[in-house]
């Protein structure tokens, strides 16, 4: 923590210096004015990243955050994609994408097949054993149910007893639903059943096909699903979950972690983060100043 504060103080100084240099340099170019002023200093501080192309592992099944562009399927688009590119832009690296299942995001990172994960992944202590996180967004979950909410589900609580919940393998909601089992039993109600799928689309299909009663996930994803099937689905309620969304970086690269963190701060300071939330029609309440989450 001390280290981090120190870095921040130094960054402020460097940013001030850098801002003068950068503005004078960038002014004539106009088009690149979007790069926050503090970034030049960061690029000087982390010269190793400049000019590199890094691999970003994503689970591109979350329209709004990361999914392929329906108009041009060769591109990935979404809030996370833009945010990652803003950070890359700040530090001088480019990103390519590696689409994997949600459960494989962190293993792909740990095996070195990817350098960074920016894919709407919730930072938990458990996951921090596999990677370090730089948190950037608060979490609001939505409860997706069939139109009219026939089972009357209102969250991961006793209303879910006896229902079939669809979830993605590796999602934080999975243990929450599992923990609900004993509580239901204590109330003399049947336990909820859990269906594990590979991606959002399959979870949503499970509800459309009548196999599952509910799917609890990020509220934006739920909203998108309702928007695509307004006469068949609805959002029962939004619930708060005590996690933050984080950018995952390898545990073995503290320097890279610091660089990404610093760049994120620059991007936020420049107002880009907020702009992107609006661009992708996400709730601005999601905004969160960055923190670091590690296993220890």
């Amino acid at each position, binding site marked *: 923590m001390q280290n981090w504060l120190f870095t921040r103080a130094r960054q402020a100084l460097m940013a001030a210096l850098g801002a003068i240099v950068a503005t004078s340099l960038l002014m004539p170019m106009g088009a690149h004015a979007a790069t926050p002023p503090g970034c030049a200093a960061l690029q000087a501080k982390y010269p190793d990243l400049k000019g590199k192309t890094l691999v970003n592992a994503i689970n*591109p*099944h979350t329209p709004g955050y990361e999914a392929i562009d329906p108009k041009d*399927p060769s591109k990935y688009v979404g809030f996370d994609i833009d945010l990652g590119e803003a950070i890359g832009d700040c530090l001088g690296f480019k990103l390519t994408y*590696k689409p994997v299942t949600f459960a494989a995001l962190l293993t792909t990172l740990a095996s*070195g*097949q990817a350098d960074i994960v920016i894919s709407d992944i919730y930072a938990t202590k458990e996951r921090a054993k596999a990677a370090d996180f730089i948190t950037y967004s608060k979490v609001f979950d939505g409860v997706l149910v069939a139109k009219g909410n026939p089972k009357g589900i209102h969250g991961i609580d006793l209303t879910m007893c006896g229902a079939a919940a669809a979830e993605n393998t590796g999602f934080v909601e999975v243990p929450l639903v599992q923990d609900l089992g004993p509580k239901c039993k204590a109330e003399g109600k049947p336990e909820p059943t859990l269906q594990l799928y590979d991606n959002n*689309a*399959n979870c949503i299909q499970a509800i459309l096909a009548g196999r599952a009663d509910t799917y609890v996930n990020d509220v934006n994803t739920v909203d998108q699903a309702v928007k695509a099937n307004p006469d068949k689905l609805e959002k029962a309620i939004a619930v708060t979950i005590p996690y933050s969304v984080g950018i995952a970086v390898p545990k073995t690269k503290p320097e890279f972690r610091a660089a990404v963190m610093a760049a994120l701060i620059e991007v936020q300071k420049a107002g880009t983060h907020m702009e992107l939330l609006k661009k992708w029609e996400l709730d601005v309440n999601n905004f969160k100043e960055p923190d670091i989450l590690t296993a220890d």
Partner: protein
Amino acid sequence: MSLFLHYFSLPYLLVGIELTLQVTALGLIGGLILGLILAWMQLSRFPLLAAIARGYTVIFRGTPLILQMVFAYDALPHIGIKLPAIMAAGLALACNEAPFIAEMLRAGVLGVDRGQILAGQALGMTPSVLLRRIIAPQAIRTMIPAFGNESVSALKNSSLASVIAVEELTLRSTQLASSTFDFFSIFFASGLLYLLLTGAVSAIQLGFEWLLDLDRTTRERKLADYLPWRRVDLATKLELAANTAPALDVAPAELAEIPPLALRRKDRAKRAAVIARNNVAVEVKDLRKDYGAQRVLNGLDMTVRVGEVLALLGPSGSGKSTLLRCINHLEDWDSGTLRVGGRRLGFHDDGKRLTPRAVANERASVGVGMVFQQFNLFSHLTARENVAGPLRWVHGMTRIDADRRANELLERVGLSHRANALPRHLSGGQQQRVAIARALAPNPSVLLLDEPTSALDPELVNEVLEVIRRLAIDDGLTMIISTHQIRFADEVADRVAFLSQGAIIEEGAAHEVLTNPRHPLTARFLSRMEADKTPAVETVR
């Protein structure tokens, strides 16, 4: 529908096909190479290699492909091997396909008739020639359907590469479904694309089957016969056989015109005197062999001189066939020595065992021909190729010379008109005559005949015996014949040896032993044979 067509022709999905095909190709080619190695290891003479291959098979056939994919992609980097996703998928698929392909190869090899392999060995083919010329062509033919299956399954299995970020058809379809919510149109489109791919594999398979069909060369066969809804039925097959087999076989008639060649008593005595002065062709001393607890050869001694015809008689299981196979070293024995033309076939001078390759070369140079009870013709080769092929592959003859020699020999056994027929379109008697021509082609110093007429229908026996009779009398060929034809033995053989329980219990000049056996077992055997068959020994001589 329009959405379906839109996705069906979407370049994004079509590029996915390319990746699907790349992963499949890597898996199949790698699997074939690995599978060849595995099959070779399992079929090798060395138990350790076979055990290693077995272990590999147990592991890679016994674990799911999806785990292997993840392992190749996520675990290998931890030991410093970081393959690109497509290579990792190809590697996992290859490792997974290999044991299946190896088992296919093994089944194909083991499915080749054991008798043909024996025949090839007897002709002096080295293991590699045998593999290339006899085993592979037949095995590959039988393996094509299985290989077609395997290709289709590899193609479908390549979709599992989606778990390790290879953007093949399945992964692209799921991503597209996630971002557009057009779940069903997309999956119908990609399902149809998969169907087209697997359909193409089936077409290729049928094409290969047609190309390698042996009957294609003997009779025009329409490609349409191979279409799934038009299976060749039994009637067509019968018609096929009728078209290829001539109604009348002229050969026996030709042979019958030749006057009986049996020797008179006076000639026999003269012949015996000449033979007695000749060199020893085959010498067997104290030969012993056990099959497990059962003793097959029990201290057998035997000498055959150049130009001599020896008939081996005795009940089934008395060791006749085993003895003949030992002479050619197609089988090992436990103790005793065996010399052909003064050489110990299969051993160095110091008694050390030769490699299979060296034994093969020695067989070819010493020249021991062999004719089998079941003919053992190479079923994928025409009559002419059965004779000419070994001459080229073993004795290095040119195609022209080999064909000339084959035509000559086929004419001698009265089959020049059937030179282009496949063995399965020949009668048993014709097949055996081709087999004799094949054995004679390299000019062997000794010809071994293992019950050459036992598998024939009674009416076909004579045409074969006639050919052998002429070899003995016209050519003066050294022959050892195991037979149940007493009359034939009397006519053709100089000597007979009577085997019982792996040893010779009586031997001597053919006519004497057969008409006046001294050992009670011989007498009993002969009287039983006479009772069973037509009156045997005639009194002319």
